[in-house]
């Protein structure tokens, strides 16, 4: 199980799939850009300018950039960010790009907000997806491995949980956290938003646990487990070292498909005013702001278009990549040769 065989094979298959390969690069690029947001010579995402309404995009040809950058102190940059900001200052001085994608109603640069917003969106989605992955793997694995009555009971519990309107619970947990935010931050040093997305992840594992359980069940019946038992391996060891790694590929696929839904959900929460809090931003909160910009009096179309486009592109890439990954990891040797 720990041999790199299937992974190497999969990587080779992936490389053969041009679309998937492009997607992977795109994702890597977006991830890198978000991570290095403070390093890029873009405007400050929170610096307002004295404008009366949202400003339309300016072509880079008309205005490529100019001086005037101020560091976004209100975003409380971490030490890592400060280092990047310092590097940026050394590299570019206070030069910054023009408003290539336009500005919002307060004159804040949309390009910068998209880059910084990608940070929040991606990390939130990752947090939630990883949490759900951890819980789903463990729960599904246990249920499948235990089998029998325990399995039955655990799966019925999943049934019950699935019919709970979980949006409702997320709202309540969100308000609970919003009510205790100061206590959380002061006493436990916890970030409300990170915690919130852990909670979202903690309710998102249901379908994953089903899939994992099914896989583990079929593996358990196989010869490997019997052999390991004969060799005297403990249950925990079998489950953790042999069975769960075997279902990991499947879980990775699932992860690629969960991140988009978490991002969408975050945008919905932003629409309700329960999502990411200012001064921070996410693609979801930008899109929610953009929705108001679509109206017959004056459409600031760029405020809706670009965040939606950013989400759309990343989600498309994730989906394509996820699909390709599934094909590549398919033990039955799925793939292009079937078509």
């Amino acid at each position, binding site marked *: 199980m720990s041999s790199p065989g299937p992974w190497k094979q999969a990587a080779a298959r992936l490389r053969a799939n041009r*679309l998937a390969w492009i997607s992977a690069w795109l994702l890597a690029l977006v991830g890198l850009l978000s991570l290095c947001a403070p390093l890029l010579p873009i405007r400050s995402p929170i610096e307002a300018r004295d404008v009366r309404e949202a400003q339309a995009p300016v072509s880079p040809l008309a205005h490529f950039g100019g001086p005037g950058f101020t560091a976004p102190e209100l975003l409380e940059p971490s030490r890592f960010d400060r280092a990047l900001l310092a590097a940026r200052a050394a590299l570019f001085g206070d030069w910054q790009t023009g408003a290539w994608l336009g500005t919002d109603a307060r004159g804040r640069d949309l390009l910068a907000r998209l880059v910084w917003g990608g940070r929040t969106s991606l990390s939130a989605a990752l947090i939630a997806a990883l949490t759900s992955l951890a819980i789903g793997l463990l729960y599904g694995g246990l249920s499948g491995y235990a089998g029998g009555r325990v399995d039955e009971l655990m799966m019925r519990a999943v049934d019950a949980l*699935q019919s*709970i*309107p979980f949006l*409702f*619970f997320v709202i*309540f947990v969100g308000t609970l956290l919003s009510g205790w935010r100061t206590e959380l931050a002061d006493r436990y040093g916890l970030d409300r938003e990170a915690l919130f997305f852990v909670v979202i992840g903690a309710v998102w594992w249901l379908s994953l646990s089903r899939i994992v359980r099914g896989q583990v069940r079929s593996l358990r019946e196989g010869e490997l487990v019997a052999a390991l038992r004969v060799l005297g391996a403990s249950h925990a060891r079998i489950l953790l070292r042999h069975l769960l790694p075997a279902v990991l590929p499947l879980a990775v696929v699932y992860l690629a498909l969960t991140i*988009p839904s978490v991002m969408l959900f975050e945008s919905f929460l932003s629409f309700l005013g329960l999502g990411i809090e200012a001064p921070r931003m996410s693609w979801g909160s930008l899109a929610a702001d953009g*929705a108001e910009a679509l109206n017959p009096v004056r459409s600031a179309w760029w405020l809706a278009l670009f965040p939606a486009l950013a989400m759309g592109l990343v*989600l498309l890439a994730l989906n394509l990549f996820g699909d390709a990954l599934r094909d590549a990891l398919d033990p039955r040797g799925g793939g292009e040769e079937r078509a």
Partner: protein
Amino acid sequence: MTWFLLRRALAFTLTLWVVVSVSFFLMRAVKGGPFDSERELPPAIELALRAQYHLDWPLWKQYLQYLGPLNLDAHGPTWLGGDGSNCLTGLLAGDFGPSLRYRDLSVSEILGASLPISLALGCLALAWSMPAGLLLGCLSALRRGTRTDGAVRALATLGIAVPNFVLAGLLVLVFAFAWPVLPPAGYGELRHLVLPALALGAPVAAYVARLSRSGLLEALAQEWVRCARAKGLSERAVLLRHALRAGLMPVVAYLGPAAAGILTGSLVIEKIFAIPGTGSHFVNGALNRDYTLAMGVTIVYTALVFGLNVLVDLAQAALDPRIASRERA
């Protein structure tokens, strides 16, 4: 079959009880109450209001009162110290209680007025999105690897990826203003429902397209399909007769819970198109601390999900005889 339904009914009761209990206590753990506002109520008045809705009782008593069926207040049965004028109340007596936000209405009245609207809109959204998604999915699967396939997949991803409030805003802008053929919002006639049904159904169509495509491909790769092909059946016949049936499985599994969400309404769509459905109560009930209304919509939703999941199981059994025989065994 009877045994299956009976077991499900038992599970349903249990689930509902868990949902009711958890949400009841969770809701009251949240800060803020139904009568908080920018303008503070005098303390005596707030006490009186809380007493009117029994919010001054200990939590366990409120819980029992909410579950029913015995009325524990001054109008309850005489042997509980009441005057006996109204002995039965609470959930078990079929009473969802009064709304705390819409003070003139009971939760049953609110649900009675808004649920049909959400159901209607949900039905229309599902009516176009299921066949459209299926059609696209089949097309995509049959033409795997071609441009059509690529276009369908891109379209499907966009349908999933674009937040529905952006899509709704765009639809309004295009069909109500740029090319004014439909009203921008409102409710009552078919023309009011076209845009919301489109916006509500778009992600469903996209998901169905994706799922049916992969389901079909999976099925087409199976040996019995190859076998059918070898028998000389045409590609279309293979698809329609054999593969579709199996390919529908993931679609059906997805549609169960999704339909529950669609049918109980979407806050976003209702807000943008001014549709007085249940979706907004779902969120606003929680945000307004309208305890009873929030519980009411939760219960309706839970029941709907459960019912639809039973339907899904039945449908899957019908689609795949292997499941049916297992159930029977």
